[in-house]
């Protein structure tokens, strides 16, 4: 008996980021605004985190509002039609519904229905996880264009009296369109997880405990020292590996765009990587705060917008956070 021959997707060789979109929360929240409940000060927060203001979304601006706005910017700049999008990937940990996913509604709202759509829960690594998957989908020929969004409304899950992380957090959404390319545009992703530190960055309780009335509304918290050690010294190794597998050296970079967790993590990582001064370092955290999955596309978009870096340069992006989960890749700037 002979078998009929199957068709399979035909691979394309390379992928790249076509365009970015960025939307921040509509409120500018100063250190003085958050210092009271943690018995702190503007100076203390600046010194320990680098943050001067963080952007947060008002009650009238939802996670989905920010995601749609950022996605529409990226689609317009990429010059494609929403109907050409072959997959929608949404990295978020603050979508307030267990199901359905945020991605399916986003696909509907931007005109990408019936594209396959799904969320990724990889916290601050969510955007880079999304880029890894988009790169694979495009090069495998599964989708011509993929929309990746990293978006968070962290302020829905903060405790104003928490001194470990809440005062760092901001809201926003960043988007990228990934599609086929004639030249390499996204290096092999170096990614992974370490569940032995599952509770190092986490929620104060589960939804079941909240339902049962045994715990208050779950909010973010972290073991700052443990996370700092991991984020600098372990992630510097991951960043170096990403450069190695990309086949480039630090001096070939135009920019380093890390997850915007804390300026001191960023500065220490720059030191560990021995980055030359010619490499621009994203420090969007100063004005935006830590926006988890949104922080890398927001920071990269800002570097491009203010002219610090130019299109076609190389940027090392590295996301790391709760899980613990991490992902790094070198991308050609759109």
């Amino acid at each position, binding site marked *: 008996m002979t078998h009929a021959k199957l068709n399979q997707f035909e691979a394309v060789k390379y992928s790249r980021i076509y365009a970015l979109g960025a939307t921040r929360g509509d409120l500018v929240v100063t250190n003085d605004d958050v210092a009271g409940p943690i018995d702190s000060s503007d100076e203390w927060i600046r*010194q*320990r985190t680098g943050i001067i203001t963080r952007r947060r979304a008002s009650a009238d601006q939802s996670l989905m509002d920010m995601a749609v706005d950022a996605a529409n910017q990226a689609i317009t700049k990429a010059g494609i039609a929403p109907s050409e999008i072959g997959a929608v990937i949404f990295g978020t940990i603050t979508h307030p519904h267990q199901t359905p996913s945020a991605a399916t509604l986003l696909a509907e709202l931007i005109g990408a229905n019936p594209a396959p759509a799904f969320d990724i829960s990889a916290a601050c690594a969510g955007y880079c996880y999304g880029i890894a998957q988009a790169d694979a989908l495009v090069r495998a020929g599964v989708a011509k264009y993929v929309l990746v969004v990293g978006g968070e409304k962290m302020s829905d899950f903060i405790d104003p009296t928490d001194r470990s992380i809440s005062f760092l957090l901001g809201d926003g959404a960043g988007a990228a369109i990934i599609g086929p390319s004639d030249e390499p545009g996204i290096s092999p992703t170096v990614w992974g997880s370490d569940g032995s530190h599952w509770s190092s960055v986490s929620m104060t309780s589960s939804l079941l405990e909240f339902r049962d009335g045994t715990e208050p509304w779950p909010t973010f918290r972290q*073991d*700052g*020292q*443990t996370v*700092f*050690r991991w984020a*600098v*010294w372990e992630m510097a190794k991951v960043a170096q590996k990403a450069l190695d597998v990309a086949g480039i050296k630090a001096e070939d970079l135009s920019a380093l765009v890390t997850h915007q967790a*804390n300026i*001191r993590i960023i500065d*220490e990582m720059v030191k560990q990587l021995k980055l030359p001064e010619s490499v621009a370092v994203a420090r969007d955290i100063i004005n935006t705060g830590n926006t988890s999955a949104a922080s890398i596309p927001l920071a990269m978009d800002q570097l491009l917008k203010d002219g610090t870096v130019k299109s076609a340069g190389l940027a090392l992006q590295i996301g790391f956070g709760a899980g613990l989960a991490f992902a790094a890749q070198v991308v050609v700037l759109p």
Partner: protein
Amino acid sequence: MALSHDEVLAGLAEIVNEETGIDTDSVKMEKSFTNDLDIDSISMMTIVVNAEEKFSVKIPDEEVKNLLTVGDAVNFITSAQG
């Protein structure tokens, strides 16, 4: 060969100086990292990681909170050198 208390103290003082700018002479055994030397938790972790490298020891995260004074750190490092 394992270093003496005085040698570890001198090495640790250099690390503290590099991270914080605090004069090495001020880094004395009885000084508290937070109360006397005004070293915050992030700087403390940087000092810990640099000390691990310099003295070839492991200082686990759960041990760091027990290192309240310079003397605590010197004693831990000295005994960890084994």
